[in-house]
């Protein structure tokens, strides 16, 4: 059943250069034509490589593909592992027996990584690519290069680029932290003290965040120094970049409610967007085209999700209005494909994650285990990172909004307010 897409793949190969830098090997405009069906995930075997480095590459790529939730990575036991990769050519019959549509082999080379993809049905090599990668001793840069390979591979196989080369920002113990999307490389970010929520610039190198003490909005290059773009008395919270990266929209209030404001990302005069008349208006999230803003407002007497034009006009209630003070919906995040807004809603005294369709207003509940807060979409518009107390403390979890499959991302001291990065380039 996967034959057509592999035929297309093989045709694409003709044009593919033999040696390419990882970040620009995407065959732009090429789509395999495979529409995702939650019931169908192509089976893939990641062929073992005999060196220790090869082993760890295979492990990282396998995990990346697995966490992408679009491909079934077929596990190999020790004997299958020995039998599947014969010298010279893959063991086609064994691969077919295992149910693999494709086999993948990533071999470390002196200059980086060599990728081979085999089509099991046609018994042909479907894709050969070489990637430049830094030495494995530069752990973060090397892992990033492997993730870049995984993400391109996923695009070749499914038509959708993977998200393994992304990171998540979050707060823990009065600091901002970063963690790779696969759970590696967890580290505190220098500079930010008493942070509230943080968000990414579309360039993936710059962030904005609020601090409680002093009360301010900061824009900072990762690894650089922060600069204050808004500050003063009262609260300054929940900043996000506009999709063009030119401005920061945040919530501010002192004695008469909290409203949304816009300020140039390089600093300057702030402009008020929302007219809350004493109510709280926080947590803005832009539609990908930058035209609309989803936000949380207490204007109806309890927190609900609204949308408005980027200039603050044409306010519209997005979530169906629940009458009664127990309704509490908050933390909207607009998916990068523009179709859904994820948010949290209080259900039976606990918060659960839901999505609402922009077109049909259809609600879908994603969680039911523990209390779940602050969803943030991955750039594939399919996975969400969020905070859950289901393990006993507040930790980051990732859920596949299609299948509901969830995994724990952080362990240790409790965390809050995650923000998933866009797809990243070389570190």
């Amino acid at each position: 059943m996967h034959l057509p897409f592999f035929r297309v793949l093989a045709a694409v190969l003709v044009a593919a250069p033999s040696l390419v830098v990882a970040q620009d090997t995407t065959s732009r405009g090429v789509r395999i034509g495979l529409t995702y069906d939650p019931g169908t995930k192509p089976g893939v075997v990641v062929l073992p490589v005999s060196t220790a480095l090869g082993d760890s590459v295979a492990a990282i790529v396998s995990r990346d593909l697995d966490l992408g939730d679009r491909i079934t990575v077929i596990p190999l036991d020790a004997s299958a592992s020995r039998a599947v990769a014969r010298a010279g050519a893959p063991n086609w019959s064994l691969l077919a027996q295992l149910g693999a549509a494709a086999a993948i082999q990533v071999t470390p080379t002196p200059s980086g990584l060599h990728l081979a993809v085999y089509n099991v049905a046609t018994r042909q090599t479907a894709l050969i690519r070489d990637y430049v990668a830094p030495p494995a001793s530069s752990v973060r840069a090397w892992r990033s290069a492997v993730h870049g390979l995984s993400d391109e591979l996923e695009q070749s196989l499914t038509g959708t680029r993977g998200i393994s080369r992304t990171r998540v920002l979050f707060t823990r113990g009065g600091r901002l932290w970063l963690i790779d999307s696969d759970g590696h490389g967890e580290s505190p970010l220098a500079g930010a003290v008493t942070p509230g929520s943080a968000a990414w610039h579309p360039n993936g190198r710059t962030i904005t965040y609020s601090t409680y003490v002093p009360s301010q909005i900061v824009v900072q290059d990762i690894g650089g120094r922060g600069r204050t773009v808004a500050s003063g008395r009262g609260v300054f919270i929940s900043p996000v970049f506009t999709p063009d990266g030119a401005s920061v929209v945040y919530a501010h209030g002192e004695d008469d409610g909290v409203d949304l404001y816009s300020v140039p990302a390089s600093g300057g005069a702030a402009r008020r967007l929302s007219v809350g008349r004493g109510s709280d208006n926080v947590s803005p999230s832009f539609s990908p085209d930058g035209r609309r803003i989803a936000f949380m407002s207490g204007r109806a007497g309890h927190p609900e999700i609204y949308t408005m034009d980027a200039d603050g006009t044409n306010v519209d209630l997005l979530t169906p209005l629940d009458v009664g003070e127990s309704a509490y919906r908050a933390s909207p995040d607009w998916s990068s494909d523009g179709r859904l807004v994820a948010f949290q809603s209080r259900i039976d005294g606990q918060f659960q994650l839901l999505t609402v369709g922009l077109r049909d207003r259809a609600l879908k509940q994603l969680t039911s285990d523990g209390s779940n807060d602050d969803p943030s979409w991955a750039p594939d518009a399919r996975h969400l990172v969020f905070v859950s107390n289901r393990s006993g403390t507040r930790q980051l979890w990732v859920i596949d909004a299609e299948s509901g499959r969830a995994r724990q991302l952080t362990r240790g001291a409790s965390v809050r307010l995650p923000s998933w990065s866009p797809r990243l380039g070389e570190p």
Partner: protein
Amino acid sequence: MNARSLVLTLLACSSFAALEGCRRKVTPAATPVPAGVDAAAAQRRADAQAAEAAQRRADSIAAANAAASRDAAGDRQAQLDMGNILAQRVYFDYDRDQLRDDGAAVLDAKSAVLQANPSITLVVTGHTDERGTAEYNLALGQRRAATVKRYMTGKGVAENRVSTQSLGDSQPASSGGDESAYQQNRRAEFEVRGASGILVRTRD
């Protein structure tokens, strides 16, 4: 004995001296001795009068000292009371920014202290319990602080003497996860600025 109570003691002594002066005017100290009266008897009477006067004087000093001491203690207590009134927290119901009656009473007392002490300013910090989102809780804490400020300005405190901020749920007063801990955490806290030394008492 601090400087203030020393001043009070001195004040008490000087008013005693003034009273003595008055008493001397109405009660002549040197009684003329009538002719033909036994000089020794007159001397005994004069001695007794002098002893009585000395005793009255000693008693008055003691009484004045005691009164001054009571005043000083009362003043210290008043300072403590006013400090406590200024620091006293105001509590809120879940997801509410409306003042409860207990909170209004606390703010009435604070407003009186502020009005008697024009140099003092207050920073009001709103807090919430851990339920709800961090961002909404920051906004809710700000609303609580703003409610407090609105009430106090309504009681005549100048608007620029009360500033507001919020820490949301980031600094709980109690780390527990039950309703009693949550109630401790849904609060407004007060930081006094510009109080140099002694607070002036409010008029009761």
